[in-house]
């Protein structure tokens, strides 16, 4: 396996990790206004992701850094080309990040409500935009001969990408709801369970719609074959199983299945891309691939060594932090504000 392929896999792993982890804290951010009847409950809901969300977001920062280091042309074309979308994403992530810290630091209903809706919007916008972005990777965007984006903002907002965006928004919301059933008790858990069951249907329908649309709109299934293999099939099956597991009150398994659904869908899209990273809708020859957009073998080699040493270390201590905060959060216990 060449270094470019190794780094394509690593970038896939980083994005997958980002979607699986930040996915549920996006979901909790989207749901928290609808989960709570008073401030203590709301704080309890937010505290289920309190210790985790920042570490989860680093998966995105690392994915961005890895793209820059391993595939600078991909990073440059994507970030300059998707400019307004990324600006919107930045604004959302900024507001959301400070809101977690600021909301409880001042006891005033208007203040809290402002930051709470910042958390909501700051979670919902990226949850939608990431779906839009991934769909456009695979559908293709106008990229010219010199690897520059030649479209506008509205090229990104095609119906196909919007369906994918809505699907990712719903799946992350579902993922967050299921996470909340794992991390709360009593009335909060009941509410989370109801929300999860409600969100499941649109999440599943949109995902199926996206899958069918992908058949029509992209070459993904032509490339993977009509029998696309175990990963895409499993991602659909996992999502279908969630409702059964929720009805049986098996939160842990349901969470595992939403995680599998997110991970496997991400992997499917990246598999469909390979060895391309950004498809050009103008001319297939102008698509960015792992070969025409990569760094030198020397750089990739250095990065491989660094990743081989440090990714496992990160996984261990981040995993440990999840273990430390494994208990459920209740509004009656002492809450960290």
């Amino acid at each position, binding site marked *: 396996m060449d270094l470019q392929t190794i780094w394509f896999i690593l970038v896939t792993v980083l994005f997958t990790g980002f979607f699986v982890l930040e996915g549920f804290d996006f979901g909790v951010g989207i749901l928290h206004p609808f989960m709570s009847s008073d401030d203590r409950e709301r704080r309890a809901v937010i505290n289920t992701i309190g210790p985790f969300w920042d570490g989860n977001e680093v998966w995105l920062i*690392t994915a961005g850094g890895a793209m*820059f*280091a391993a595939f600078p042309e991909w990073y440059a074309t994507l970030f300059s080309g998707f400019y307004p979308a990324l600006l919107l994403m930045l604004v959302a992530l900024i507001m959301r990040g400070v809101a977690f810290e600021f909301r409880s630091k001042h006891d005033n209903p208007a203040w809290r409500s402002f930051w709470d809706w910042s958390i909501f919007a700051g979670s919902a916008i990226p949850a939608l935009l990431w779906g839009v972005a991934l769909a456009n990777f695979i559908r293709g965007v106008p990229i010219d001969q010199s690897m520059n984006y030649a479209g506008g903002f509205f090229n990104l907002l095609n119906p196909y990408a919007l369906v994918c965006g809505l699907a990712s928004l719903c799946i992350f919301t579902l993922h967050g709801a299921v996470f909340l059933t794992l991390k709360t008790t009593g009335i909060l858990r009941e509410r989370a369970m109801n929300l999860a069951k409600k969100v499941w249907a649109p999440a599943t329908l949109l995902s199926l719609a996206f899958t069918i649309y992908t058949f029509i709109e992209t070459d993904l299934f032509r490339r993977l074959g009509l029998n696309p293999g175990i990963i895409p099939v499993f991602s659909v099956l996992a999502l279908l199983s969630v409702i059964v597991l929720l009805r049986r009150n098996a939160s842990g398994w349901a969470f595992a299945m939403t995680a599998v659904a997110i991970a496997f869908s991400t992997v499917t899209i990246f598999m469909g891309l390979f060895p391309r990273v950004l498809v050009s809708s103008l001319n297939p020859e102008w698509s960015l691939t792992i070969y025409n957009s990569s760094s030198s073998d020397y750089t990739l080699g250095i990065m491989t060594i660094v990743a081989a040493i440090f990714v496992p270390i990160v996984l261990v201590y981040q995993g440990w932090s999840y273990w430390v905060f494994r208990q459920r959060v209740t509004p009656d216990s002492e809450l960290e504000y």
Partner: protein
Amino acid sequence: MEQHFIIMNTVTIPHVTIAKEILMDTLFLARLQFAFTSVFHFFFVPLTLGLSIFTAIMETAWVRTGNEKYRKLTQFWGKLFLINFAVGVVTGIVMEFQFGMNWSEYSRFVGDIFGVPLAIEALLAFFLESVFLGIWVFGWDRLPKALHAASIWLVAIGSNLSALWILVANSFMQSPVGYKMATDGSRAEMTDFAALLFNPYVWKQFPHVLAGGLVTGGFLVIAVSSWHLVKGSKDRSAFETSMKFGAVYAFIGTILVTLAGHTQMQDLIESQPMKVAAAEALWETENPASFSLFTVGNEKELKDVFAIRIPGMLSFLAYNSFEGEVKGIKDLQKEYELKYGPGNYIPSIITAYWSFRFMVGAGTLMLLVSIVALYKVMRESYTFSPLLGAIMFWSFLLPYIANSAGWILAEMGRQPWIVFGLLKTEDAVSPASVVSSGELLLSIAAFFIIYGLLTIVDVFLLKKYAAAGLEAAQ
């Protein structure tokens, strides 16, 4: 519609046309946004660097002595640290995205090299600080004391490691090493990772930035502690303790930052003589070279209008001897023309000159204040006259002035280069066909509004929690 515009254009008065040209100039707008977002980001970073270590020291004192006073101080300074940290993190994400968004040509040119420390920074430093910060904030009752203290140390180490890696990246822009040009000349490629990491420039700049962080933290501790002591708040004994620690911390930081700055300036004479000459408004090569106390210069004709200079002083600062040649702007320009072809290789002298003076001036004042503070705490005297109290308080601004001025000198003094000797800033910006001036204006407006809001909220909360004292932070 079109005709209408043409008519409008023909009647525009000249200065409006100029304003319009500037607003259409993507290079100018991208630079403006970078300057604004990076200076703003760096308001928060040094305090994160310095206050994380200070909070860790407080908690270590608590673990070792069991004295509750230190636990309260840990939570008090930790609270201020967190409020500041949040803004530092979110404005940092902008920096990572901005290279690709506004500087795509730069990203293509240096990605092979520059991307590596950025990725390593995320993997080694950001995960460490984020994960352990979560553990620290939510783990007071869940972890043994020593492990809890260890997690704030890991946050501090993570933050300072992140500074190291971003400076490895920046040092390549300042003084490129360990690379070769690709055969088609389209990009620089890494040939020696160790050379990049052990770039002498890194090891001059990193201590400078690190010490800058200590100073920023130290002076904030002095300001808040002395404010409480002057005001006679309760918890007097705790604030005397933090005043003592803060004074020592700020003093050590100031000495280190002075030494590190001095060393870096000496190095710059080798690596970027033009930056030094511009910072000194040294038009002609001199031996021994004089140090400018105050210069009003004519930048067009490259000469003094009015100047007070100390003879030989620049040579002394540069070489620890009153002899030694320091190259002047005009000679360097000629030299660079020969080396890099025709062009203007002189940075904005007024910017370089005054940013250097603001940095050194603020540094000198910090040294004086920290000596007074140290003298007071060594004599165990914790009463301040109103004047001295005001000085102790407002001095917290000095490190901010020095930090910002220092970076403005570092980045503006390198112009016209974005990567010294390899790529000019004007060739690094995203093509206007991809990122239009309209999009840039939109993003500048967005960042202005949001950063303005963040400033107001951050100052409001820092003030609130700093003034509320120890109990509010429990």
